[in-house]
């Protein structure tokens, strides 16, 4: 969700799989009589080996953490991350960036309605947690939220606000026999929800 795997970690993954592949190929060549060994000649097999190595291998927590996106982020200030809007209260957007806390940002005045719950946004992260040591206190005071600036919308779930409001109206009035609502429209709204 945050950043793609890049740099030394990816190189490490590639090199270990490549080494394994070269070894198996060497074994196949050195023993021409063994026909049960499959020839890993094609590029597709090589790509598959890359994918398989990270998923199936049992990792300790230390290994998981070392190769995590959190560790790769490094210093949080200035990093561009993508997040998903999980809650909206009027203008305030609560965005899940994949860290401990959600970032809270204001929806822009222009096209603010496009920033609906479930949309993906691009943010510039500043802090993992807004905690500061105040004069006289032994421990930091925490605001329980991450600090980020909204950059732009990546992928909007348009029409969701309208659909939510319409569904809320239906629920308030009750789905009794007196209330007539076209079945097709209702199904469509429920699908979007």
């Amino acid at each position, binding site marked *: 969700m945050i950043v793609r795997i890049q740099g030394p970690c990816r190189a490490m993954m590639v090199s270990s799989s490549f080494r394994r592949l070269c070894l198996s190929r060497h074994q196949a060549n050195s023993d021409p009589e063994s026909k049960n060994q499959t020839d890993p000649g094609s590029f597709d097999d090589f790509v598959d080996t890359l994918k398989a190595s990270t998923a199936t291998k049992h990792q300790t927590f230390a290994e998981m*953490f070392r190769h995590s996106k959190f560790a790769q982020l490094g210093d*949080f200030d200035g990093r561009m991350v993508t997040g998903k809007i999980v809650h909206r209260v009027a203008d305030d957007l609560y965005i899940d960036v994949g860290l*401990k*806390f959600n970032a809270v940002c204001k929806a822009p005045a222009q096209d603010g309605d496009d920033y609906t719950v479930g949309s993906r946004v691009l943010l510039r992260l500043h802090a*993992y947690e807004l905690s500061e*040591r105040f004069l006289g206190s032994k421990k*930091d005071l925490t605001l329980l939220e991450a600090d980020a600036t909204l950059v732009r919308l990546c992928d909007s779930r348009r029409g969701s606000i309208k659909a939510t409001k319409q569904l809320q109206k239906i629920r308030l009035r009750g789905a009794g026999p007196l209330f007539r609502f076209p079945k097709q429209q209702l199904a469509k709204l429920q699908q979007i929800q």
Partner: protein
Amino acid sequence: MQKLPHYLIRGQLGARLFSTTRLLGAVGKTRIDQQTVKEAPVRSIPGPDLLEKGTVHPEILRKYSSEELQVDDHFKLEPLLDIREMFEARLHYGHKVGTLNDNMKWALYGERLGVCVFDLELTKQYLLRALNFVAHVASRGGIILFVTTNRETMINVEQTATKLGEYAHCRRWQSGTLTNSAELVGTPIRLPDTIIFLSTITSLGDPHPAIKEAAKMAIPTVGVVDSNADPAYLTYLIPANDDTVQSVNYLLRLFNEAIVRGKSLRQKAKNRDF
């Protein structure tokens, strides 16, 4: 057979005897991965000197406990705990170092750029112990109370508790709910047998008043302690993230499974007796 002192017998209609599970709940050094040899439990109550020693070394009381308590992971909850899943549920995220409680340093893997990180190997061990305890309580017909003050996870906690047929208290805690229950609720009243704290800190940043009240009433507690929380007075600790919704949901699923297994064991025993 020695007579138990009256203050150890829970006073109510159909008095519940003081169960030895509470004794084993004391902070001990028993390692969950060392499976003990299944010995036949001794059918007598230990003397007061042994009980006193047992508060520090609970292992010596093991042979006096019932059969189900002879094994550490009686409900076989270990396969349910996967470190990869915990990692993806963000259980390892702690607060910043500035908010770190010194009594939580033991649970951390370390600190990276000011952020505390929990050691999930330790979390798994403690979580397994806590889940087994909760399952045992449920299998004995115990009342379990879920407590949290985190606004985002409040509703999930209440729903989980209700579905299980257990209880939840996620609103303002009235001082004296447990210690002064006679006045606030009335008598006779059956208090919860276990309290599970999904978050030990209130929205004001103070430790939850129910922790000390439970300790005063000798009610064992299970608490999810974050890096800024105080682990004092809690019986079973689970050092993990308590602020993220995904983390709490993961823990709730596990508690749900543990309680379901405990209750099904109780049901099987009832059916067998008939």
